[in-house]
């Protein structure tokens, strides 16, 4: 098959890696004289050291990642380059990537290359030989677009903060970067995986106060810092728990799971759940696996590791989940933490646990997060948002982010477009048109002709109005036609109005528009309605008139932003839109749900108006009709609440009136003297 990229390097033997044992991986001998890559270039950035053309334009905005097949590298005398070989964790990581959407087995399509050489722990590596092995990779090309994962960099005595293996331009996902070695926007700071994550199940605890205020559980704390911690313990007593290794326990797994204080033994990491704050001090390295345990326990980490680049700091807002204190201020730790409001501590506890669940809990999470960060850099316009990265699911569900969030009071001049829904009540329609045309800010009239069997009257028969009037004929008699975002609506403000609403005065309508300008992201209407919880029936109930509260306004006459037409037509959840069309009812309730759900805000009721009296309606069966009506409307509320999965409507006790409404003041001096009646 013809390939655009040269594709001769890989032999076909390397492709058939369906082996069950790592020992069957091909053995590769590294010649002594094999070239060594250059040390990492500190000035590398995505635009200088990363070949973006390999990633290409891609409708899914997803990078493709290739993993080199496993090989066993040995030096000339047959000694392996690593004492561990492929570690369990690195194997997990590569499996996860291989199972993900990022993976490609086609090296020619790959944007990112991941060597199967395990460099997670520098301690188990022979530096020079590992570097030579990297350079032998068939696509190495100065390390371009290669990604290495390292969690434990450096070694005694200096413990450098980045992997010491020379690696040309390769990207480094490293645990324990300092601000001096981290190439911002190029490298990725990752957590040090804690083996306890898989070992121990710590159930999530409700945020709140804990038995201890501060807990220190690390065993290899520098003696100077331990002295300072002990001094803090002396000053503040019971609030602090200062744990250390248990001297009487034998080495091994058991001792890892225990901590001691004055002969008393505590289970680790369970004990972390008993404290509000947990100390994470730098050790020889900046990155500590303890951080992961602490987050898992929902304890707020107090990170004291100067110049440490926190894991995934490119996307995670650590201020919401941790307290970072300079090492120098260790003695002030207690005072600093005491100054944090309780509710903030609870927020941080919740956030800490969420960070662990989403980004720390497995090698898979760590790997996927790393790739997503790189993906976001390559397709920045499709990047995940701050909220997507940082908001725990409960916040994602409950927080609202109004699409019209800017506090803008639009100018009066463009006016509003009135959209009149009509079927065949010509006479009443013409009266409505005549009435609305008196409103000063009316810019245009659109008549949505919902009757497919009858043509609208001839042009000459229509009332003469000063603004453009356009009749739009619909294909089907659907209620949702009234909320269609017609191109003819050129203003932001829409007045939805029924063809029988003739009782609203010009002042009333103009005032409604003025109020809408102050609240362009809300529904602004006249008669208000309310939803109530019926305890007896255990469901929602619709309530009209004479209540002291309002949670909906009728859209028989209401102002709103055209954006909501677009939302109603294209983004209405579930089957609500079709359901409304089928039942020919409740389109207004649906609109109220939609707006309240996306903005988190209540509608604004203006003026005293309580109902739309319709003169044509006769009183026959009025009462029973009313009752069926109420039952139907209640059903709508229950149906919508179940589709939305929540009750988004908000209840308020106010309405908007003109400033001088009913004030003892000459009527002729009032802007809106004729504000109508009930």
């Amino acid at each position, binding site marked *: 098959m013809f390939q655009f990229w040269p594709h001769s390097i890989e032999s076909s033997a390397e492709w058939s890696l369906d082996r069950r044992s790592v020992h069957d991986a091909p053995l590769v001998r590294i010649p002594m004289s094999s070239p060594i890559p250059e040390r990492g270039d500190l000035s590398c950035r995505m635009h200088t050291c990363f070949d973006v053309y390999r990633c290409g334009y891609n409708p899914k905005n997803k990078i493709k990642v290739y993993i080199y097949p496993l090989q066993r590298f040995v030096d000339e005398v047959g000694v392996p380059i690593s004492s561990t070989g492929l570690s369990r964790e690195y194997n997990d990581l590569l499996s996860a990537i291989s199972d993900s959407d990022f993976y490609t087995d086609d090296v020619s399509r790959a944007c990112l290359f991941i060597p199967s050489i395990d460099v997670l722990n520098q301690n188990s590596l022979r530096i020079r030989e590992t570097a030579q092995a990297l350079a032998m990779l068939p696509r190495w090309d100065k390390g371009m677009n290669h990604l290495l994962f390292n969690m434990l960099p450096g070694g005694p005595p200096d413990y450098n903060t980045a992997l010491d293996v020379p690696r040309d331009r390769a990207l480094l996902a490293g645990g324990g970067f300092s601000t001096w070695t981290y190439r911002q926007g190029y490298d990725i700071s990752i957590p040090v995986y804690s083996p306890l994550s898989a070992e121990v199940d710590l159930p999530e605890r409700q945020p709140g106060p804990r038995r201890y205020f501060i807990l220190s559980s690390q065993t290899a704390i520098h003696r100077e810092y331990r002295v300072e911690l002990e001094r803090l313990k002396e000053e503040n007593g019971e609030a602090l728990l200062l744990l250390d290794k248990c001297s009487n326990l034998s080495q091994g797994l058991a001792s890892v799971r225990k901590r001691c204080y004055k002969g008393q033994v505590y289970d680790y990491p369970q004990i972390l759940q008993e404290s509000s704050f947990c100390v994470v001090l730098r050790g*020889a390295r900046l990155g500590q696996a303890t951080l992961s345990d602490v987050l898992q326990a929902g304890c707020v980490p107090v990170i004291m590791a100067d110049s440490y680049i926190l894991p995934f700091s490119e996307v995670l807002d650590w201020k919401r989940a941790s307290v970072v204190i300079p090492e120098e201020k260790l003695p002030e730790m207690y005072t600093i933490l005491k100054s944090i409001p309780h509710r903030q501590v609870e927020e941080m506890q919740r956030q800490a646990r969420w960070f662990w669940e989403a980004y720390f809990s497995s090698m898979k999470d760590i790997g996927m997060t790393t790739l997503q960060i790189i993906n976001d850099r390559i397709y920045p316009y499709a990047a995940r948002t701050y909220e997507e990265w940082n908001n725990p699911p409960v916040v994602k569900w409950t927080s609202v982010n109004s699409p019209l*969030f800017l506090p803008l009071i639009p100018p009066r001049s463009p006016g509003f477009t009135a959209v009149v829904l009509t079927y065949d009540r010509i006479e009443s329609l013409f009266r409505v048109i005549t009435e609305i045309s008196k409103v000063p800010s009316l810019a245009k009239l659109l008549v949505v002709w919902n009757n497919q069997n009858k043509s609208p009257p001839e042009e000459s028969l229509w009332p003469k109005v000063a603004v453009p009037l356009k009749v739009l004929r619909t294909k089907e008699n659907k209620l949702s036609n009234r909320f269609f975002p017609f191109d003819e609506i050129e203003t932001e403000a829409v007045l939805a109005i029924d063809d029988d609403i003739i009782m609203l005065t010009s002042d009333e309508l103009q005032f409604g528009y003025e109020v809408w300008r102050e609240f362009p992201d809300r529904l602004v209407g006249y008669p208000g309605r309310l939803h109530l919880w019926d305890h007896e029936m255990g469901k929602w109930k619709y309530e009209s008139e004479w209540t*002291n509260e309002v949670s909906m306004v009728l859209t028989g006459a209401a102002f709103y932003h055209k954006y909501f037409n677009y939302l109603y037509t294209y983004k209405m959840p579930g089957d609500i839109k079709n359901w409304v069309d089928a039942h020919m009812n409740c389109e207004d309730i649906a609109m109220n749900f939609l707006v309240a759900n996306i903005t988190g805000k209540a509608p604004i009721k203006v003026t005293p108006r309580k109902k739309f009296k319709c003169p044509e309606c006769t009183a026959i069966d009025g009462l029973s009709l009313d009752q069926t009506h109420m039952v139907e409307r209640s059903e709508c509320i229950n149906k919508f609440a179940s589709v939305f999965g929540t009750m988004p409507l908000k209840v308020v006790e106010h309405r*908007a009136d003109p400033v001088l409404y009913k004030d003892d003041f000459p009527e002729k001096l009032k802007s809106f003297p004729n504000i109508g009646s009930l």
Partner: protein
Amino acid sequence: MQAKKRYLILFSAGVCLILLFYLQGPASRRTPNRGDDPHPHWPHFSDPLRAFIPWDQTETEDYNVRVSPRHKRDDNSGAYKCRMDSCFDFSLCGSNGFKVYVYPQQKGEKISESYRNILSSIESSRFYTSDPGQACLFVLNLDTLDRDQLSPQYVHNLKTKIQNLNLWNNGRNHLIFNLYSGTWPDYTEDLGFEIGQAMLAKASISTENFRPDFDISIPLFSKDHPRTGGDRGYLKYNTIPPFRKYVLVFKGKRYLTGIGSDTRNALHHVHNAEDVVLLTTCKHGKDWQKHKDARCDKDNAEYDRYDYKEMLHNSTFCLVPRGRRLGSFRFLEALQAACVPVMLSNGWELPFSEIIDWHTAAVIGDERLLLQIPSTVRSIHQDRILSLRQQTQFLWEAYFSSVEKIVLTTLEIIQDRVLQHNARSTLMWNRLPGGLFTLPQFSSYLGDFPFFYSVLGNSNPEKKPHLPIALVILKTLISLFRCIIVLWNCDKPLPAKHRWPATSVPVIVIEGESKVMSSRFLPYDNIRTDAVLSLDEDTVLSTTEVDFAFTVWQIFPERIVGYPARSHFWDSNKERWGYTSKWTNDYSMVLTGAAFYHRYYNYLYTQYLPGSLKSMVDQLSNCEDILMNFLVSAVTKMPPIKVTQKKQYKETMMGQTSRASRWADPDHFAQRQMCMNKFASWFGTMPLVHSQMRLDPVLFKDQVSILRKKYRDIERL
């Protein structure tokens, strides 16, 4: 020419790829498994693998033998490689807080208007100190803005002048502002003098030279950029659909050769003269004719056909390609015009990148992928456009619209670093009303501010514990308060204890030390609830009125909710702002003699406003309410809310004897007028906004049985 060729090759490569894709597509579908390899995935090994870290080594090791952990921290302190830890002396900021000292100006030293604006912005800010002994940060009196040797603004001998500064101390805790560095042909980022350990607030800074969390990238601004206030963003409507006449526009110089010329030289490949209009001109410099290439005449002609302003205001996206330097004026222009900037400037550390999440307001492109830009921006969903566009406006008004805002943002960023754990979170910077109005010292908990309820996912202030606090008591008040605080601002001694009314809630009496007006807005620790009801001693309100106003305030916790309202207007004859207390059809202020507001505004009033305005209020014993209204409207960009009241406040005021003098005084009114104008000049703009509505209870004065009404008393006279 070379660039052109390169792009041509690139383009044809792209075409080839697409062709290949088509040719290859069906073929690969026919043979899903390539060759002899059915399992290209990572294999599942059955071997027991070792952990990457042995159990007993999760914590290391021989660390304890090291002399002191502190030694490690200083390992990397070279002169140019600076971080706050290594190059900044935090101890200078400890006791006095974050204070900034500006070296006194020297005679004969020429300072550009822009730099003068920077200095005066600092001097009029709350951070300023004239005492170097108090200072945490030092700002030079030498103009370092333009370090282009070929520029007329270039200051010579800076090196010596700076070395001679007595407090220079190798630049420690100094902040240097710079807009232009380097010159033709290579435009390096060197300033031509040793900056030592000083921080740079620099425009067009590259990621390579940028010292993270130490330097600050500022936007390039013109010498006409207003000192304070600044114009608002141009966005007036959120039209739906949000698309404008053009998709993408650019109009600017083309350099033909040399640094930064590639991208602009290639723009014509993307220009389509319809909705993507990218125009360049070769006409700049003295001898442009000499250097012109084959495209120049054609490009120049096309360039003259379009009006820049018209394009700016009618385009959804605006291209911001690098010029000779990485930043350009196009950036701020696009931001203000609500034209979503499409950045094409590889390696530019974007302005205030430390705190601004630019993904929410701009499209960050890659110069190497210029040819993809049109399809990229076309693929952006209209909901996203709507939000990007609004965010440009928020960021423009919060951080960029005046020199003062740029300078204050720079200082606040540095202050955040000094505050460390108390610093603002990303949310505080990137959400309305922005970092300059969200003071992190008030609280680290977002819910303590009136702005973030919806972000946090809890609805508006919790119902139960939020019982308001009265600042000045009345006899009839009331069981719904958690606490009542009386501020005794009178020279007479406090009444004897037995003369105070018996109440079920604690009454705390604070005797104002200085007995000044501003003390009514001090953030007293005793105020524990979010809602504050501020009252004058002679205000008469019924419980119903207070109850109702409180329910309204809970819906609008970021605004002032009160009873008597006032209005402002522009007096075009006198060319100044006018104040009116007449009954009008609209209002822009509510008096704080009877109003609910969020406790945070007490803090903001006390901390944010400059001493000059507060002392003016204290001296006049007047206008404190106007100032509070200015402040809150500057934050919210919204009017206050007037709610129903039973009687006219004014009448009762005049009827009272105790302090009627304050309102009867003929000077009183004139003072308030003057206050308005003073305040407007400090804010640099008129923040007040008019409203035409009043909020009443739903059944207010309706003809229905009074028994149905919850707030009956409001209607009874």
